[in-house]
């Protein structure tokens, strides 16, 4: 890496108002990259219902990342925390005359989307939303710093954090170090693995699969320094896209538009009050104190559209043209 190399950062923005929890990104990613035997429990991209314990279970409380700039020890999630993947043997029932039902071979007590739609709060003041999570391709990747084999590097041309399996020595240090639990270990090959931003697609000018296949049209991708890219406008200009748990100190490059549309809290007489149902404090615990400003801006801009006035911000989020969400990238192979 020389000082003349231009460092650029590919960033993602996920609009939690548009994410419908359909798991389209989860499956798009899963089918493309983590289908090899032994990787069943690995989800480079997952969507979890929050508030909740997430995937892997209680991922946010395992340490990792940095504390006042110094690496903070972390713990590798256990197989049970990822969830033992369900295996089924329907054929024994369907074709071989076995009377029993097809049920998971292992006890089913955790899975990547185990808490779907549960959330928090007592009826009728229940609340939840969907939080897609992927590698943050951080400015200061804890996984890379923890790797003594030098197998993980942040490449300058797009800031993607890539893991070289040939150099990986299977120490698992990166798995423990990532505070987001987005590095994984493949026990069969004794190698770590992680989201690589679909770099083979990027190099062909295509958007990553999770973005390209998002039917909720909730994901944006592009260079953070590209003034024309929606990610730049949402993160840098409008300041309404915020990183998840920035306190881990890694400088995430996946940003979220906080959920700002939703029913208000209901009073005991059944009428709606003024307060938002999702507590601001909860959102601040995920997206930092700036979320309050972001919510204010977002609500004000939406009200403009309600009055029939223009709003560049709402137009950015609506993204009438699918390509407008993708920076310079294309959605699908042309042939």
């Amino acid at each position, binding site marked *: 890496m020389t000082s003349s190399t231009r460092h650029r950062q590919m960033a993602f923005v996920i609009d939690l108002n548009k994410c419908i929890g359909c798991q389209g990104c989860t499956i798009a990613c*899963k*089918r493309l990259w983590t*289908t*090899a*035997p032994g990787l*069943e429990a690995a989800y480079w991209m997952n969507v979890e219902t929050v508030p909740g314990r997430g995937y892997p279970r209680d991922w946010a409380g395992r340490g990792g990342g940095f504390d006042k700039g110094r690496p903070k020890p972390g713990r590798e999630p256990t197989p049970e925390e990822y969830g033992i993947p369900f295996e089924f*043997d*329907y*054929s*024994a029932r*369907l*074709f*071989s*005359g*076995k009377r029993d039902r097809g049920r998971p071979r292992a006890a089913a007590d955790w899975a990547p989307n185990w808490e779907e739609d549960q959330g928090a709060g007592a009826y009728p003041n229940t609340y939840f939303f969907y939080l897609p999570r992927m590698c943050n391709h951080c400015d200061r990747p804890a996984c890379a710093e923890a790797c003594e084999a030098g197998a993980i590097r942040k490449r300058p041309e797009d800031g993607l954090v890539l893991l070289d399996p040939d150099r990986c020595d299977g120490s698992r240090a990166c798995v423990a170090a990532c505070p987001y639990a987005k590095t994984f270990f493949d026990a069969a090959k004794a190698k770590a693995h992680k989201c690589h931003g679909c770099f083979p697609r990027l190099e062909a000018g295509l958007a990553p699969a999770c973005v390209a296949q998002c039917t909720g049209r909730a994901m944006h991708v592009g260079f953070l320094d590209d003034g024309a890219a929606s990610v730049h406008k949402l993160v840098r200009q409008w300041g309404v896209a915020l990183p998840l748990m920035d306190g881990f100190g890694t400088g995430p490059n996946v940003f979220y538009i906080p959920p700002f549309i939703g029913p208000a809290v209901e009073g005991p007489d059944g009428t709606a009050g003024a307060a938002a149902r999702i507590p601001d404090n909860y959102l601040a615990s995920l997206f930092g104190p700036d979320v309050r400003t972001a919510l204010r801006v977002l609500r004000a801009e939406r009200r403009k559209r309600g009055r029939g006035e223009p709003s560049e911000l709402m137009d950015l989020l609506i993204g009438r043209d699918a390509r407008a969400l993708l920076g310079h990238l294309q959605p699908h192979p042309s042939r």
Partner: protein
Amino acid sequence: MALAAARSRAYTLLAAATAYPDEALWETLADGRFAAALAESMAEATGEPAVVAAPAGSLAELQAEYVAAFDLGRGGPGRSLHEGDHRPAETRPDLLVELAAFYRCFGLGTQHCTAGLDHLSVALEFMHFLAFHEAGGAAGSAPYRHAQRDFVARHLADWVPAVAAAHGESGFHGSVLAAAARLVAADAGRYETEPAAPGGVGAAG
């Protein structure tokens, strides 16, 4: 060459016996010719004859037994005769692509393969084909030998012994699977001690 010829014969017999039982197979089973031929070729190929249990009852019963045992789906944990059933369902296309590529390298079409590309009988038939040409000798046999080595290591040795173990040795199909597992294991052991293939064998051949 004699070894390859024996293996070729053993593989074709095992391929026939692991396919859905038909009239042709039944005839040779009924009069004992199949058992004799397999015993002889296995003895030559592995140094030990195979003992095949004679099927009881009728062809229809053998067919029903075949279906219940492993023809359809996974047929119980680890018992399916489809290689793809021993891996995650979503990886099957990768597997099939690789198998088709193996077959196509030798000019073998799969258009009429109703059993499925990854069925054991097809794989054994492929080995029969390769061994047959290896036995044919001459200078061009290297690709056939190398492909057998790779095909056994990447595929058959990976799952056939496990299927045979899951099924047990009882009955006609159990004894056939046991023989197949033994032949595959013998091949795998022999190939392990052979030097690796030089690159670009195809171009040389």
